[in-house]
């Protein structure tokens, strides 16, 4: 009896011991900053002086801040345009790849190279590609008789340009995840449907899509969370220009915190961002029961 008790006791101690480095790290670098940032959002703080409590003023200023609302709009534009297109393309690609194809390793490597390259490199390369006079993109368009715009300098085309690059960069990653999901679909479902006379489109619509809906949900949720925090892409392609047309929330936040040293204001912004991301995730989760098929 006694031995049994002490075994569980030791296991308990060892358990906590094993997770202690991570826990310490989490408390010091995540939990405490998390709590401090709540406080900071109610202060005016420039780092050189001590924080000064100002109540809800930061939030009041945010509501009146046109740049903030613009950045919110740009972020939504980025997320809600890029994600559907990107995921649709990835799924299509995954369906194509989900066959016994020779050279699959080559293809996988090729599609992944953009994923593992840093945004700095990707940004530079694509800025050169988007060059209005000498860039490849406009040259290719000219082959079709089209005159390409001055992509990254145009208020209308800068954001679409970045969205395209973002889709390009993440395609391989999303495709791999979809592929893993596709490979989990039992073959007999397709065979049974063939006996019932289903064609390929019907198979896709009634078998593939439902069976892959958990994966789709996972990707949608993580993509939304990621897209709303986009920074590297903007910094390395346009720095928020031209005229703030590509200014996203985190970029505006970064400018305020480390450029203008308005850290309290930025902290308030960060919290609004958190609430938005949290709410969107919750909404997606609730809606999921309507369209996600759990076998």
């Amino acid at each position, binding site marked *: 009896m006694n031995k049994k008790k002490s075994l*569980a006791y*030791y296991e*308990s101690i*060892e*358990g906590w011991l*094993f*997770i202690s*480095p*991570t*826990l*310490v*790290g*989490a408390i010091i*670098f*995540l939990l405490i*900053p*998390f709590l*401090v*940032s709540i406080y*900071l959002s109610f202060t005016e703080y420039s*780092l050189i002086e001590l924080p000064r409590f100002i109540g809800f003023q930061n939030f009041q200023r945010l509501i009146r801040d046109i740049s903030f609302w613009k950045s919110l709009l740009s972020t939504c534009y980025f997320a809600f345009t890029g994600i559907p297109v990107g995921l649709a393309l990835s799924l299509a690609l995954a369906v194509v*790849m989900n066959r016994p*194809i020779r050279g699959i390793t080559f*293809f996988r*490597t090729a*599609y*992944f*190279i*953009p994923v*593992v390259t*840093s*945004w700095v*490199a990707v940004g*530079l390369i694509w800025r*050169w590609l988007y060059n209005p006079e*000498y860039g*490849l993109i406009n*040259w290719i368009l000219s082959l079709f008789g089209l005159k390409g715009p001055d992509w990254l300098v145009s208020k209308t085309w800068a954001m679409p340009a970045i969205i395209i690059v973002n889709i*390009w960069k993440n395609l391989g*990653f999303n495709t*791999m*995840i979809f592929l*893993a*999901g596709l490979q*989990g679909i039992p073959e007999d479902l397709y065979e049974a449907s063939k006996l019932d006379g289903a064609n390929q489109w019907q198979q896709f619509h009634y078998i593939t899509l439902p069976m892959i809906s958990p*994966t789709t*949900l*996972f*990707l949608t949720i993580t993509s939304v969370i990621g897209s709303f925090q986009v*920074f*590297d892409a903007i*910094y*390395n392609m346009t720095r928020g220009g031209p005229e703030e047309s590509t200014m996203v*929330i985190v970029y505006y936040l970064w400018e305020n915190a480390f450029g203008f040293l308005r*850290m309290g204001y*930025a*902290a308030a912004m*960060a919290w609004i961002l*958190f609430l938005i*991301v949290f709410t969107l995730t919750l909404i997606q989760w609730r809606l999921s029961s309507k369209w996600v098929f759990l076998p």
Partner: protein
Amino acid sequence: MGFYYKNLFKTTQTILFYLLLSLGAIIMLAPFLWALSTSLKIPGKEFAYPPEWIPNPVTFSNYKEAFTILPFSKFFINSTKISVTVTITRLFVTSLAGYAFAKLRFRGRDIVFLSLLGTMMLPNAVVIIPQYMLMYYLGWIDTHLPLIIPPSLFFAYGIFLMRQFFLTIPDELRDAARIDGCTEIQIFWHIMLPLAKPGLATLIVISFMWTWNSFMDPLIFIHSTEKMTIPLGLGVFMSQYGTEWRRLMSGTVASTIPIIILYSVLQKYYVRGIALTGIKG
């Protein structure tokens, strides 16, 4: 439909799919090839119209210039130092935690694990400002410490990965060792860790690459040139050479080749790590 027509249809489909796949692969790789091509051109040739794919003549002078203007070797050393330190530390910290969450029983285990997972949804922007404050008061700004210590200790994705992996190891192994009188630490070190090699391999590859390519944190915490990592150094300095595309491309190619080579060699582990966590939607 006759057997012959069905076969023809299938073959055509397969050919079509190969074409599509290849087109996609070209789109993925072409920008890099174009950057390479530009980097080997002599001054003026990069503005040739229509664009030339094969540089004629080929020159390496752009690389020479890029390497003299920027302390690339310093950037490389910094990136390597940070990525290696973080990855090795994470090896131990995350596998310990992952194992504990998978196999050990202690009160509050699941709550703590779920909270850890929940932090993945927390925007970095929320904590970055107080983190900066902390680093400022510690005097760690413009050192590598903010880039090494926090990520080494806390790596939610890695813990999740290792836990998934340890869950697949049968309990009997551990029970047998317990009966033989081993302590948990002995079990972990002598039995579990060696068994976890595939999971660890994935952890190493993913952690190294993510740390290497990290941009926003170095941007915030590092200010002096000699301390910069490759992405940061490339980005911050190359913005000075606005339109000198040949040099820009040579710097880019030089910065990208290490990671591309590393990935091509180790891709098996990277892909497996993603598949392991991705399906469990």
